[in-house]
């Protein structure tokens, strides 16, 4: 049962990582690509973390997996703004 949940959630996570990559390639400009990367990859990592959590042997491991996702989430929110800002300044928009 736990293995099934792991398979299901990690597969779902990979779909979102693929979506982020497809968006990175297909979307027309830097800013739209950033949307794809931050939002889709964040969700992909969330599902992979959830899937892997079903294999954890202790609550400490679950906490560590959750911590990884939270830290990546914070980093994604901060880095998206920084990259968007840098791209905007290079274009002379702000």
């Amino acid at each position, binding site marked *: 049962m736990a293995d099934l949940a792991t398979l299901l959630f990690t597969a779902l996570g990979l779909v979102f990582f693929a979506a982020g990559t497809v968006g990175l390639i*297909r979307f027309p400009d830097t800013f739209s690509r*950033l949307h794809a990367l931050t939002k*889709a990859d964040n969700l992909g990592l*969330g599902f992979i973390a959830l899937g892997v959590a079903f294999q954890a042997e202790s609550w*400490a491991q679950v906490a560590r997996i959750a911590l990884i996702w939270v830290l990546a989430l*914070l980093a994604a929110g901060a880095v998206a703004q920084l990259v968007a*800002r840098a791209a905007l300044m290079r274009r002379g928009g702000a």
Partner: protein
Amino acid sequence: MDGLWIRAVAHRGAMLGAIWAALSAPDPEGLALGLVAVPAAVALSLRLLPARHPLILWRLALHLPRFLAGSVTGGVDVARRAFARKMPLDPGWIDVPPEPSGGLPGGARVALGGELSLMPGTLAAGCDGDRLLVHVLDRGGRFDASIPREAREIAAIIGHRRDRPQGGA
């Protein structure tokens, strides 16, 4: 050493202590090292982001489900657009008047930008003066209500009121 400061030390100590415990459990030596590392981290955090606003935890807790739901919707929305044969995109910038974000202190504004970047359709690129720069994937989307709402919620979490400007914040 006022109430605000004590509260900030308690909140940050609890949060950083929980992180340390998660990282080092169940090793007792690692936990003992935390007795030095956690206070040092709290001191550093108070230096980098002094306690000027109280963090209202129950409001933060109430906000979390909405944030999680929004970030799931955001991921699904962008994935749908990426996979669609005719990518339904109409990217552009929208003007966010200073009203919702201008009153927020710097750290809260960064939090608002980070949050908006994970919500469906919006991406923050920092501020231009008091104006929040927001890029949207679909200019036809309706963001005029959602962005001020996020700003209001974040303002509420730090107990910030626009009608009472706070000196030095």
